[in-house]
């Protein structure tokens, strides 16, 4: 009987994902470009005076980051579903939920993290006060982590549906409402100089909840889609 090692399950899938994503630089650039375009839409759609932009800065950056991360999240399993690797993952002795975590982590490193690191740039362009940048990055870090977990459930549920992309957005966005509220509110308070620790703590709580519980739901959703 083969020995069952959790470390191997995680590292095997992580290595495969990172080499595969590394091969196509598009998987890193596309979410970033989408993020930049959506951020640029906001000033174009109102009068771009600095005071006006400052009021909508945190919500614009957050909504753009949420949509960009979701765009990248949507095809998390589609590639593996189409070439049959998802069946292999489901049938192997290695726990499926651990392989899902590895896949999520790889995708987050490639599409979520760059968003977080570049969000101050977008905030600067929308004239957000510099004191809010660190809180923006911390809240976006937590927000993109919980989106990557909840989004994985949506991606697994809609992987076998033909135009699953739109349905994926309808399923995942309502679940992201708490993260969006807390994130934008924390950034707003921080950019005014107030202390946003309370909101960030709640964001940490939601992030931990979704990161730890959702892989099991994603594994179950994968088995349903493979039926």
């Amino acid at each position, binding site marked *: 009987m083969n020995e069952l090692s959790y470390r191997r399950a995680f590292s095997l899938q992580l290595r495969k994902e990172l080499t595969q994503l590394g091969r196509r630089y598009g998987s890193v650039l596309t979410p970033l470009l989408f993020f930049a375009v959506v951020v640029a839409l906001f000033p174009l759609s109102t009068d771009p005076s600095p005071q006006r932009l400052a009021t909508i800065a945190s919500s614009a950056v957050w909504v753009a980051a949420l949509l960009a991360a979701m765009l990248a999240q949507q095809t998390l399993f589609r590639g593996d579903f189409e070439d049959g690797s998802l069946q292999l993952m489901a049938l192997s002795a290695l726990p499926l939920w651990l392989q899902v975590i590895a896949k999520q982590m790889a995708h987050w490193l490639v599409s979520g993290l760059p968003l977080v690191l570049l969000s101050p740039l977008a905030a600067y362009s929308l004239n957000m006060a510099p004191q809010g940048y660190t809180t923006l990055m911390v809240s976006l870090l937590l927000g993109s982590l919980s989106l990557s977990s*909840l989004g994985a*459930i949506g991606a697994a*549920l*809609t992987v*076998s*549906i033909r135009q*699953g992309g739109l*349905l994926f957005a*309808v*399923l995942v*966005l*309502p*679940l992201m*409402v*708490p993260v969006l*509220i*807390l994130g934008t*509110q924390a950034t707003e308070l921080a950019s005014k100089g107030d202390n946003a620790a309370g909101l960030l703590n*709640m964001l940490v709580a*939601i992030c931990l909840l979704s990161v730890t*519980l*959702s892989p099991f*739901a994603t594994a*179950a*959703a994968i088995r*349903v*889609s493979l*039926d």
Partner: protein
Amino acid sequence: MNAFMTWFYQMSSPPHFYRWAGRAIPWFMWPALILSAVAAYLGLVRSPEDYQMGHTVRIMYVHVPSAWLSMWCYTSMAVASAIGWIWRMKLAHAVAAAIAPAGAALTFLALVTGAIWGKPTWGTYWVWDARLTSELVLLFLFMGVVLLRNAFEDRAQGDRAAAILAIVGVVNVPIIHYSVNWWNTLHQSASVSVAGKSGIDSSMLMPLLLMVLGFTLYLVALILMRTRNEVLLRESRKRWVQELVQS
């Protein structure tokens, strides 16, 4: 206890449930009609008008029951889905499939009556009030479950996918509810609470409770009817359906 278990096991067989539900529906539908009629009469005629809101407070007798029951629908849909998922009971999935559209209808009802009530209270039809906003998000969740269920060709697969989404959703509903309330208190001064449940006097409480009971009975009857349809949909190949149809 084992009387309940045998009833639960018997009920899990679709033909048995189909016949039992057929007999049970009138027993729920007629009392629901009577109760709601009495509650409507009390609410519209008997109960006093509110010193502040005048007669518009009578909308509460329709808005509050549908808001409460839409929440109840989502939770019971999630419970039915969980039962269906754990014990692989096709009937439990049929019940969950029946509750979803009924819940969505009630959420829509709560939204529209809340909006109409908002007009005299705040001067506009749509205000991003805490309760209305979380009702709106609940409607999105309901529609998500309904759309996901019929996105799959195979019914059993659609049931199991919708079950996962319902269970994930029911974990998130309280979080959404509190974060929306939190967001509301941060941005708006505490506006007049639409359904001032605390401190409404007894003459208003009676019609409200009667209406809630009436709506609940109505909902049980509606869900039994829709479950029978879902059972027919899922079991149309089986022999008991063909015998039923030919007899």
